[in-house]
């Protein structure tokens, strides 16, 4: 009876569920993945749907106009039942998403998982980092308080410094000379439509390529494997539950405030972009702008094309590894130190 029901329904819905299940759950996972260090890519993957759900809930109340954006965020935070909690989770999941992408990139970098034939997936990953930073930037600006208004101004100013097309990009992004009504509706559209769709596409590509190649196996681990389900699946569930608890805790203990309402005519003494731009922002303050932009652009290019550059470092494997460890360590330490300096000197 059951069989026949299944057969009958598959006639109406001609999709082979068993095959899909096999692809999803019977993937062979190398044994090194049992190590917790290798679960860091899962983190942003779990956080993204949390952002979609909490973002949808916030969108029920948020109104993207200069007159009402701040008031609607205040309404969400102070009046709507559990509004502060949903907003807190959305805020902290965005922060954790960026931190976890950094961690995942670092793990991939040090285990040299970007090497041939996985160069493209490294680039996809870097694009995902860029998209995540952009979606966070646009989202933060929507709160329309003094901090976020001026962060949007500084952040979009940085876009304006891009050679040749900077001014055009800036005008397109702001929809005028200053951050205002058009900027808000543009940021809103980018934040709730364009960027989530792009990120979804990129995540799909990232995973398709990952699955196509199979998960890279670091040297020195036994060449054994196990099924994705149940072992690894449970690990993802545990990470997910841990993240939900952490997010809820952060949302309650450190809820994002609403600040003072944006005042376009009153520039605060210290204006900053969001913290994930701090390192670049600080560097640009220290050196002449054109030199700074050139160097930042160069560093981005080096990171993007690192899988192709790394083989050029040395022919000897051990030397290549040593140099890349050193460079990676310097880069991470610079990121941390610069970010901390900008945080605590302003």
């Amino acid at each position, binding site marked *: 009876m059951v069989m026949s029901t299944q057969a009958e329904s598959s006639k109406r819905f001609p999709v082979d569920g068993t095959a899909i299940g096999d692809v999803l759950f019977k993937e062979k996972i190398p044994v090194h993945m049992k190590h917790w*260090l290798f679960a*860091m890519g899962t983190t942003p993957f779990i956080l993204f749907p949390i952002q979609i759900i909490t973002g949808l809930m916030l969108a029920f109340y948020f109104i993207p106009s200069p007159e009402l954006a701040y008031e609607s965020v205040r309404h969400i935070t102070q009046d709507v039942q559990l509004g502060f909690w949903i907003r807190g989770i959305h*805020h*902290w999941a965005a*922060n954790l998403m*960026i*931190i976890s992408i*950094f*961690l995942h990139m*670092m*793990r991939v970098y*040090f*285990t040299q998982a970007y090497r041939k034939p996985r160069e493209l997936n490294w680039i996809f990953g870097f694009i995902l980092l860029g998209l995540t930073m952009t979606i966070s930037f646009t989202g933060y600006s929507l*709160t329309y*308080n003094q*901090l976020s208004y001026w962060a949007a101004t500084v952040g979009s100013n940085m876009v304006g410094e891009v050679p040749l097309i900077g001014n055009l990009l800036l005008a397109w992004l702001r929809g005028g000379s200053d951050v205002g009504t058009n900027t808000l509706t543009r940021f809103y559209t980018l934040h709730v439509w364009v960027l989530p769709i792009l990120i979804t596409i990129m995540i799909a590509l990232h995973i398709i390529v990952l699955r196509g190649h199979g998960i890279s196996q*670091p*040297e*020195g*681990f036994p060449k054994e494997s196990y099924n994705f389900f149940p072992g690894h699946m449970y690990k993802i569930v545990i990470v997910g539950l841990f993240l939900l608890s952490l997010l809820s805790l952060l949302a309650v203990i*450190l*809820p*994002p*405030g*609403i*600040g*003072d309402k944006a*005042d376009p005519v*009153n520039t*605060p003494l210290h204006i900053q972009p*969001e*913290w994930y731009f*701090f390192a670049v922002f600080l560097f640009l303050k220290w050196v002449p702008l054109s030199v700074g932009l050139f160097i930042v652009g160069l560093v981005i290019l080096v990171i993007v094309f690192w899988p192709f550059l790394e083989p050029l470092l040395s022919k000897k494997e051990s030397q290549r*590894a040593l140099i890349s*460890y050193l460079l*990676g*360590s310097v880069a*991470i*330490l610079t990121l*941390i130190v610069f*970010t*901390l300096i900008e*945080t*605590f000197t302003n």
Partner: protein
Amino acid sequence: MKEINAQQWLIGIFSVLLIASLMVVSIVEVRKTQDFAKEIDMDKNTAECVRCHRAEHVAVKQIDAWEESIHAEMAIGCLDCHAAEESDFDAQRCPESDVLIGRHPTPGDCKECHEQQVNEFTNSKHAHQFWLFKNEDRSVFETPLGTRHGCEQCHNIGNIWPDGTVGECDVCHAKHSFSLEVARQPETCGECHVGPDHPHIEIYLESKHGNIFKAKGRDWDMDYYTTNNESIPIEAPVCVTCHMDGNEKQPMTHNVSDRLAVESQAPWSFRTVWDEENSGDWKVKRERMTSICTSCHAPDFVDMYMLTADLVNLQYNEMRRNFVYWTKKLTATGVIDRLQADGKFYSDPVLNGWDETPEKMMYYTWHHEGRRFRHGAEMMGADYTQWHGIWEMQHDMAEMLAWAAEHGDKEAEEWVNCNHPSKFIPYALYDIPGNEWGIPTKLNTTPFVYSYPDYWDRVKSNVEAAWKHGLLTDAQWDLWMERYDNRDYYLGLQFKDDPKVNELWEMYKERNRIDTEAFNEQAIGLKLPGKPFYKK
């Protein structure tokens, strides 16, 4: 394996470093969003005052309060209010900086920016030092020191300053935040409008208005302006809503006398004539008040409410007339003496006295109980109208007459020995058929006075006389007459024998019988066997 170890160490160390440092950064950043630091644009002088006061720990909380004020937001600094010239009455040099400052900013200083508000206030009775115009030297009964932090603290609201201005704005607008929220809080008015002589805060809290305020007021944002003819933004009124705030029809005013039609605090209630040339007569003032009332209430409810309160004021006068008769008579016959020294009197038979019972009764029935009777009726304080009001007045009348009888007054003796229940109503009566709350059915079947067949005609002639004397408006007289003509309906007498009513009445009558039986049995019927200890 060495390779794996190195990788794991690197990943492990940098994971911890990245998580720790970036979480710290994001926590610092989220904390910034929780601050509501206002951008304060301080001029050089203000910055110096603030720096020094903070360093020396002098009145620093006043600076905190100022920083959250609209003054700070608008860059109105210390010297904008505290500036002084050498010749100013309150000029003093700051001991640290030698800067010349005015110690007491007066309404003259506030007026530089708030001219309309100060002018309105100056024309209000808040600014009137009425208590100094009559022979009421308190030092006879209360030593001067008692008045320093007593009478003077509240009555300073009408202080006439050496610079020729009047008032004290920060009595309501607490310095230095000058918060509207604080000014609008009923307890701000209740700092002075409290206690046995004018328990306005207590009356308010007893009323339905205060009841709703206590239940929901904590969620109300009281920081609003009513200067733009917008509707009242809170569910129930606080004191200033009726006496000062604006609505769609009424402008906001700092003249609290602008909406009061009766001088019901005075020894005799009378229709106000205060500043008629600027504010209009009492009818105009009453219109102003009712236009606020009708923001929430139906006009006929308001008219009936106000008419009844006005009749209470007129009734008070008749009761007072009786007291005045007695204290004057007892003074004339020498039963009570006036206080005097060097040819000057320090007590007054129609106002106050401090040593003999009729004088004290006279005073209380005006200054305490008489006001509670009238103000309770005006502001929905039922308990103050009755138990703290008319009940106490009647009690004092009986006590005064008993004292007079004891001291040999024949007429008082006659009153004491009289057994007729009408002895407690030795004055003319006002009344109105029914009330604004609804139609009673059995309530009006009991009053003793209704046993007089001409009761309503007597009352009607009194109300008519008051109307003809200009104490009631034509509309009020019409309303009274409409009630009079249909009094069987309003008093519920036409429903008193309705079977539905009687069915319920009988049920409660039966329950009352059971109650009576129970207390007879449980309390009265109990005889204890142990003997009492008192021996005659």
